């Protein structure tokens, strides 16, 4: 067994190279999720009935289908159907991003709704158009309220990124599998991989906490 974890340790540098890919996937998905989620949430709160319904269906769809199925569906199905070729990396980011947008839209929606309607009234009263009010008054506050949930979303996306192994994205899990296939030290290698994910979770959460502190406004707690 002592030989075991040493052999596993030798594979560590190779596995660690995957960290960069993992983080890029997560960052890409988070940002995409935020961008789309913002639009969706605004539509859901302020949009007209049929648009709201559409968003509802989108959210239901992307929250109801398993990640793995969506990855396969997109990579093998949609790309073939549209006759486009995209790397597994791009597909991974897009799929994770779309799923994340569905969840983030609900978080942001909740945050927007929790803001006192007085905010919108006051904005209108000083002559702002609704669009201006939403962009300059509502969203900045809603996003601060949603920060803690963003931390959660980061953790989830980080762990979900491991599933992209199924498409061959060269992130942590894929590399871990390569090393395992070579050294047969599956046990120690997966334990190592697990710890790497935990370390990334911890680091990311701490970073987001610092961000929370930086943008915090006195007296404005989301608890």
């Amino acid at each position, binding site marked *: 067994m002592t030989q075991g974890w040493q052999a596993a340790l030798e594979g560590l540098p190779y596995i660690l190279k995957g960290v960069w890919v993992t983080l890029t996937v997560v960052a890409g998905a988070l940002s995409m999720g935020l961008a789309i989620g913002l639009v969706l949430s605004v539509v859901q709160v302020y949009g007209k009935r049929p648009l709201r319904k559409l968003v509802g269906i989108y959210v*239901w769809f992307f929250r109801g289908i398993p990640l793995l199925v969506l990855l396969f*569906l997109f990579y*093998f199905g949609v790309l073939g159907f549209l006759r486009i070729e995209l790397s597994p990396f791009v597909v991974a980011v897009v799929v994770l991003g779309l799923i994340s947008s569905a969840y983030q839209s609900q978080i942001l929606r909740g945050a927007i709704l929790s803001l006192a309607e007085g905010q919108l009234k006051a904005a209108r009263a000083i002559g702002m158009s609704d669009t201006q009010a939403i962009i300059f008054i509502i969203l900045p506050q809603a996003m601060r309220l949603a920060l803690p949930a963003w931390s959660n979303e980061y953790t989830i996306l980080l762990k979900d990124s491991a599933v992209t192994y199924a498409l061959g994205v060269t992130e942590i899990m894929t590399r871990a599998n390569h090393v395992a296939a070579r050294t047969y030290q*599956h046990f120690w290698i997966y334990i190592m991989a697990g710890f790497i994910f935990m370390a990334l979770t911890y680091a990311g959460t701490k970073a987001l906490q610092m961000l929370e502190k930086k943008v915090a406004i006195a007296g404005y707690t989301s608890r």
Partner: protein
Amino acid sequence: MIEELLFIRQEVAPAMLRGLWMSILLIIPSAVSGLLIGIATGLIRVYGRRFFRTIADGYVLFFRGFPLLVQLYLWYFGLPHVGIYLSPYTAAVIGFALCSGAYHSEYVRGALLSIKSGQMLAAKSLGFSRTGAIFTIILPQAIRRALPGSGNELIYLIKYSSLAYMVTCIELTGEAKILASSYFKYMEIFMIAGAVYLVLVSLTTWVLNRLEDAVAVPGFERIRS
């Protein structure tokens, strides 16, 4: 074209049903075990003695920290190194149950802590033992509070059951992949698979909402959008 579709349905339907059945066989034991583990762990983490609390906290730390996929691989590919060989199904169920349990315990623990301390005081003042108070007064309230979170976790379980395919337990997603690869009909087949999951998820959500309504007590309501 229609003939083709019908023919495929002769091939597709049995395989999908086989897969669906396997998915259900995976989901139900995992869900039940996960919930029980979660409640037990939650109780220990709030009311247990230091030693057990630390173990429980450690369990939750690792089983929420490691990605589910890594956990599944450890059970199926890792355990053989210590001489334990689990079938794909067993490895999957154990993996799902323990991972799910860790998440459930978070919701249960949060719910238990959210119950006002006055409830325990009042129960004790009537002569309840600590255990009696926990099970008769605190837990019934906590479970109602944990229902939204735990219900959500159940939905996640249904979706993540698809990962069983990665440890060679062929359930719905596995059947779909195999079928799609054989016939090159990726789009259609994965859309069907996706639709089945959507139905499962929606059905479960509906049942969970009815359950919440059934056990609802004025003062414990959650506003659902």
